[in-house]
């Protein structure tokens, strides 16, 4: 069910200024920027380790994440992201239980694409040691070369594959 009568989205420049202020505040308070996959990596490691004891040997990439547990700054930050997005979508009347995505793909196909895309994203974020937030945004703000290198790879591949997937985003005809 899509939201009915949603309030308009925010102006992108004002959103960008607000995001820049929050990002700067995060650097000022914590010494690092905003991130997301630090938390998803912790959650993956801890949940797999609790389901499958001894899943990770001492030399596994995820072993340290599994040992560290979930009570970290980044996990609480992502909990905050979820609360903030839920509150914003409710206040903005944009909340809607739905399967969203390209109009030319039906529900199961769409969920398959979401899972595949998520896997590429999760793998890529570990290679880069950060995602669009943790490396692209929080790396580029202090003008780190790594942040911009990440964004170059992100947009080049995104535009290439985005062009490939363009037909899926054609509007369905009403007939």
């Amino acid at each position, binding site marked *: 069910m899509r939201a009915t009568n949603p309030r308009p989205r925010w102006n992108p420049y004002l959103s960008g200024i607000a995001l820049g202020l929050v990002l700067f505040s995060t650097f000022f308070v914590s010494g690092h920027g*905003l991130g997301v996959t630090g938390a998803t990596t912790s959650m*993956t490691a801890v949940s797999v380790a609790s389901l499958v004891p001894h899943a990770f040997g001492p030399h596994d*990439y995820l072993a340290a994440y599994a040992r560290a547990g979930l*009570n970290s700054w980044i996990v609480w*930050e992502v909990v905050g992201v979820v609360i903030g997005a839920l509150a*914003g979508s409710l206040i903005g009347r944009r909340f809607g239980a739905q399967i969203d995505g390209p109009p030319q793909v039906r529900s199961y196909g769409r969920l398959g694409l979401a899972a595949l895309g998520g896997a590429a994203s999760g793998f890529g974020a570990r290679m880069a040691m950060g995602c669009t937030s943790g490396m692209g945004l929080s790396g580029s703000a202090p*003008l780190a*070369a790594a942040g911009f*290198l990440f964004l170059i790879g992100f947009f080049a591949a995104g535009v290439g594959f985005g062009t490939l997937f363009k037909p899926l985003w054609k509007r369905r005809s009403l007939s």
Partner: protein
Amino acid sequence: MMIPWSGLILGLLFGLILEGAGFGDPGCLTAQLRFTNWAVFKVMFTAIVVSGILLYASRALGLIHLSDIFVPSVYFWGTLLGGVGVGIGMAVGGYCPGTSAVAMASGRLDGLVFLLGIGGGTLAFNGVYPAIKSWVYAQTGPNALTVPQLLHVSPWVVLVALTAILVAISWLVDHRGKRPTTGAMSALVSAPVNSIQPEH
């Protein structure tokens, strides 16, 4: 249990802004990759420029030292190919990690599935990590290399250049399709700057 309140509060603001900007919507996010909507570029680039200026101004005023904040180092292949992976993920799945969390929180089941996919990709990385770590995590250049260091210029040159790029591209995309000769009336009734263009 000690809750890091700064994380919870700053994350809440982060989620509120991403949702407000429309970044829980896979159509809005991937439209940037097809160049039919420029909100992703505008929001991200504005945020980078604003926080960059504030960070370097704070450093100039002696409020912070760059060595006290986390500046990632370049691991050329890991950083570049990691960006490629996240870019493919957005084109195929409609999100990046943060925006999939926003999508899930605003009611989208595909956002939750994307997050589960991230878990799968993370486990796949764990599986191949011993075989690839030597070249993926091979550092290029000095620790915490910045663009001003790389180009041997002042950070303010880079910040001014980024601001100029932001203003120029924003002006171009906000004014495309508007004929300069059509006068004030058509400018008043023309589509709002932020509207999503129909795709055919």
